[in-house]
């Protein structure tokens, strides 16, 4: 049941994607800024994922999981 709800959240969020106005390539200056990236600082993101993974039960996010470690 919980899993089904999780899936439906994913599907609902997908439908939000459809309702957007066209942004021309030359109008994407702000979006191209480094701080607007999904992972503005890759090493910082990887470090956080690793530390939280070793302290908490949850994992999984925007990147497919990397290698295992004996920390969890």
């Amino acid at each position, binding site marked *: 049941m*919980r*899993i089904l709800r*999780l*899936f439906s*959240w*994913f599907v609902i*969020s*997908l439908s*939000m*994607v459809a309702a*957007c*106005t*066209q*942004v*021309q*390539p030359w*109008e*994407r200056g*702000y*979006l191209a*800024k480094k*701080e*607007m*990236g*999904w992972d*503005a*600082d*890759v*090493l*910082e993101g*990887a*470090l956080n994922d*690793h*530390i*939280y993974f070793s*302290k*908490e*039960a*949850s*994992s*999984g*996010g*925007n*990147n*497919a*999981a*990397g*290698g*295992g*470690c*004996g*920390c*969890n």
Partner: protein
Amino acid sequence: MKLIKSRSLIALSTTALALPGIAHADAPPVQNTLSYKISNYKEDDLSRREVVFGDLGRYDIDVHQFQLVAPFTRNTSLHIDANVEIMSGASPWFTTAGLDGQPLVNLSGASGIRDRRAEISIGGKYYLENGSVGGNIGYSEEDDYRAVYIGLSGERHFNSDMTTVAVGFSHSSDKLFPTDAELFNRVIEADKRTTSALVSVSQIINQVSTFQTALSITEQSGFLSDPYKLRDVRPQHKTQFSWTSSYRRFFIGADAAWHINYRLYHDDFGISSHTVDMAWHQNISRSWQLVPTLRYYSQSAADFFTNVDDSLNPLTHYQSSDYRLSAFGAISGGISLITDLGDWTATLTAERYIANEKYSVYQVSQPSTALVRYFRISLGVDYSF
């Protein structure tokens, strides 16, 4: 937008927009970037009230991260990652009930733990007209643990590059061989496999905001228990689901970018969790940026979590007193100061993390001891050449 009436204009625009210098086609990075980050984080000491014997100090960890991203050929790039982690300290060994029935934690041997983890991963990415495909292989080694993994990823842009669909797959094959196994009657050698798949959709909403939603499924099998705990018996399979959604917005007036991510997680150990994290990337001048971050996390307990190990249960009975399987909440806050000097970028980060059963949004029937608190400090340097 003006309505384009002329068919010729459409024809000319179409071929012009397909030119590689104009098209939003993915391209390898223009420069080599070498990054290094050193971090130290130290868990707060436990109080004697909570510890029966052993050191009060817990983990003190140094992490060194290296990364090289380099254009390789016209359409490919090369990524090399290396990490070294040096841990010292103690970790919870077993818990007992104190005289008043409160759980007490017993930290591993007086000598403590000293371990080193080294990891290397090499990957490549091939850039196509409308996306990219990539792969990597990696190897990680500790005194008592070894992992070999591969990853594959691909992404494709649609809808005039307004939409990006990405998929990822990874597999890790791990082996654990606990130290002093015979002495303490631990498992001598065991295997663990993790397979994970992910799909994400990113969308440009308007000139200043983007949205991403992702679903990932991870399947683990093999020895999932903690070999160092006296009584830690977990199922041999675990399936994890997570749904993540992320939003980025740029505020032109403030010259700042706002990041917010939310993750919902469930697994068949019975653990569910919510994670919300935010960051505000404030440009102070062209070369300085200040980034405060805030994160909230809360999880429910695993079905078989117990805060007091019960040695009388048969070995087939699932039980674990690992605090990471208990219900708790965690709040963390941090701040980064970034300076961009053209070819050089330096980042200084400090973060405080506090886990507490009181922060949980889930019901806490058995509070765990030994919930962590830590303070982290990092210094990162990027050099482009």
